[in-house]
């Protein structure tokens, strides 16, 4: 857990994550932020509690005959687990566990593809209704100026970047919508690594990224 996260998830995103209605790429980004942020983990707990009241109050549908016996049959011989769960040691691992599950390891397992000007990306295998990618922005470099058709969530995993809105450091999440055009620039001190999720293609301002866009899938 990082100590000084200042940019958090919105209530709408937390409620949608709790309800289970976000695209997988957004779920991944929310889960990764919560892995780093106990403030939002507690807020999610509150929204899950709302879900708990839905279970209690949405009525009861009669189970079919023998359903209890069938289920008892299934669990016979299964011991409820005893093992202590794996916990990340923050000194050694950079990617939060939900992202590592998609990468198949930590940062050294990411298969980067260059997208120009030193910026690299790795698209993660999520469902097609939205896209999640890891971005590598060399210290001091910029991601081309772009706008958004839908929503873009950008979670900082290492280093920091600044754009027209604010500065975003490790654990911070920027939520950009159609009204924002921005040029994120990585801090000079360290290469910046982010997870970015979009539910529609980005709109680039300049010609070159726009031409390259279909090939790079950005």
């Amino acid at each position, binding site marked *: 857990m990082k100590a000084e996260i200042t940019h958090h998830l*919105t*209530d*709408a*995103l937390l*409620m*949608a994550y*709790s*309800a*289970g*209605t*976000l695209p*997988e790429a*957004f*779920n*991944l980004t929310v*889960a*990764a932020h*919560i*892995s780093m942020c*106990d*403030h939002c*983990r*507690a807020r999610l*707990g*509150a929204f*899950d*509690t*709302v*879900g*708990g*009241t*839905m*279970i*209690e*109050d*949405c009525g*009861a*549908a009669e*189970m*079919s005959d023998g*359903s*209890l016996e069938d*289920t*008892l049959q*299934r*669990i016979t011989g*299964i011991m*409820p687990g*005893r093992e*202590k*769960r*794996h*916990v*990340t040691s923050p000194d050694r691992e950079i990617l939060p566990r*939900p992202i590592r*599950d*998609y990468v198949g390891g930590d940062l050294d397992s990411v298969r980067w593809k260059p997208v120009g000007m030193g910026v690299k990306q790795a698209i993660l295998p*999520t*469902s097609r209704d939205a896209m999640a990618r890891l971005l590598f922005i060399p210290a001091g470099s910029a991601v081309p100026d772009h706008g958004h058709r839908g*929503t873009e969530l950008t979670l900082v995993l290492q280093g920091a970047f600044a754009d027209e809105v604010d500065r975003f450091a490790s654990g911070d999440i920027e939520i950009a919508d159609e009204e924002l055009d921005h040029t994120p620039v990585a801090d000079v001190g360290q290469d910046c690594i982010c997870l970015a999720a979009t539910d529609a293609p980005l709109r680039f301002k300049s010609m070159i990224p726009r031409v390259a866009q279909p090939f790079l899938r950005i």
Partner: protein
Amino acid sequence: MINMFDETTAIVPSVLSPAVLWRDKAVANTFQRTDRPTVDTNKRSENAEWIECIIRVRDSQDKAAFATLFQHFAPRVKAFLMRSGADETLAEECAQDVMATLWQKAHLFDPSRASVATWVFTIARNRKIDALRKQKRPEPEDLPWGPENEPDQAEVLALQQECDQLGEAIATLPEKQRKLIEKAYFGDLSHTEIAEETGLPLGTIKSRIRLALDRLRHAMK
């Protein structure tokens, strides 16, 4: 109204009270010791009963305890899934899956962070995403929750009171607002359609869960 009991319980947990483990056989008695006029006592002792059942499943694979949980929660999970768009056959099948998961994951339930109904909801929701949307559900990294750092009874009780109060607050919301929240949880609203101001009084329960998280983080060090 939400805050009425808060000053008495907020400070008590990990600081002053002796570490009474929630697996302690005295659990049921502890629950009856504190009388809060604003809380529905039946409902509260109900959750205490579910917690007791999960402990019995966890510690001694008690099938009678499992049956008690099944009889209460399986029909509710089934109704929840049908409201979310599953047909009856799928909802039945998934409700059984959810209850089997309850058995297998009994050791992961932390009563200082969630009521049993809340925990059942999260399992049902994940099954729903898997069955209806055919998607994986990325979950946040686990916290180091385990028998060696089980919460004390005051924490569990305090959380239950917050849950009950929230349930009452939702029940008394204006009809239109309540319907919107239901629509969000039954999957009828996208995240851009969900209002940023939900009007739900979530502040105190959030603080309560945060206390439990801080205790776990402290135990990690």
